[in-house]
């Protein structure tokens, strides 16, 4: 009877050690894994779309966190609904409180080449509560950018 108990204790120790080594390298417990509803609200209240874009409500909006060093930036991808209404949303979850808004992991963000202003991107830093310039034409005046054209 002693041997099974000893084996169990060894197995349990190994399990605890594995769990500890996993948590050591993982993000801190308070690190968010999805974009908060509040942050999405701030982005959508403040985003300034390029002049060639349509109103925000015409787009399905997809949000995910992108890790860069010490920052978790929010990457938003807006797809014009009438052009991309059937896009693959696998992994993205609808935000019930806000129509046509989805959030998930960055690996699940839809990827669309070209498309002009049917595809709009935005990057936001929740810590400084400011938009991050990702193209020359974005920045103070327009906080989001359209895709290129083929």
């Amino acid at each position, binding site marked *: 009877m002693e041997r099974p108990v000893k084996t169990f204790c060894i197995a349990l120790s190994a399990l605890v050690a594995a769990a500890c080594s996993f948590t050591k390298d993982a993000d801190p417990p308070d690190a968010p894994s999805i974009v908060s509803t509040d942050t999405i609200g701030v982005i959508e209240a403040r985003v300034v779309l390029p002049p060639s874009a349509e109103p925000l409500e015409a787009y399905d909006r*997809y949000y*995910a966190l*992108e*890790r*860069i*060093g*010490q*920052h978790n*930036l929010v*990457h938003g*991808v*807006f*797809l014009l609904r009438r052009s991309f209404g059937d896009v693959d949303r696998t992994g993205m979850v609808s935000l019930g409180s806000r129509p046509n808004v989805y959030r998930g992991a*960055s690996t699940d*963000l*839809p*990827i*669309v*080449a*070209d*498309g002009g202003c049917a*595809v*709009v*991107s935005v*990057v936001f*830093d929740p810590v*400084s509560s400011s938009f*991050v*310039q*990702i*193209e*020359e034409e974005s*920045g103070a005046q327009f906080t989001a*950018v359209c*895709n*290129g054209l083929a």
Partner: protein
Amino acid sequence: MRLTVNGETREAPDQATLADLLASLGIDGRRVAVERNREIAPKSLWSQIVLAEGDQLEIVQFVGGG
């Protein structure tokens, strides 16, 4: 001078700017954000930011959307 870029050690010429570094890495700067020493470096300043020995840089390209 020696820099750390996305966790890897890189050499760059003295007085190199952040824009110079990105060009040398073959990154065209579209849909890219850079963190330098834990601060997001505004794209409008990339050509003015002179890198220094030991700088820690993280570069990410936003591929979703296009």
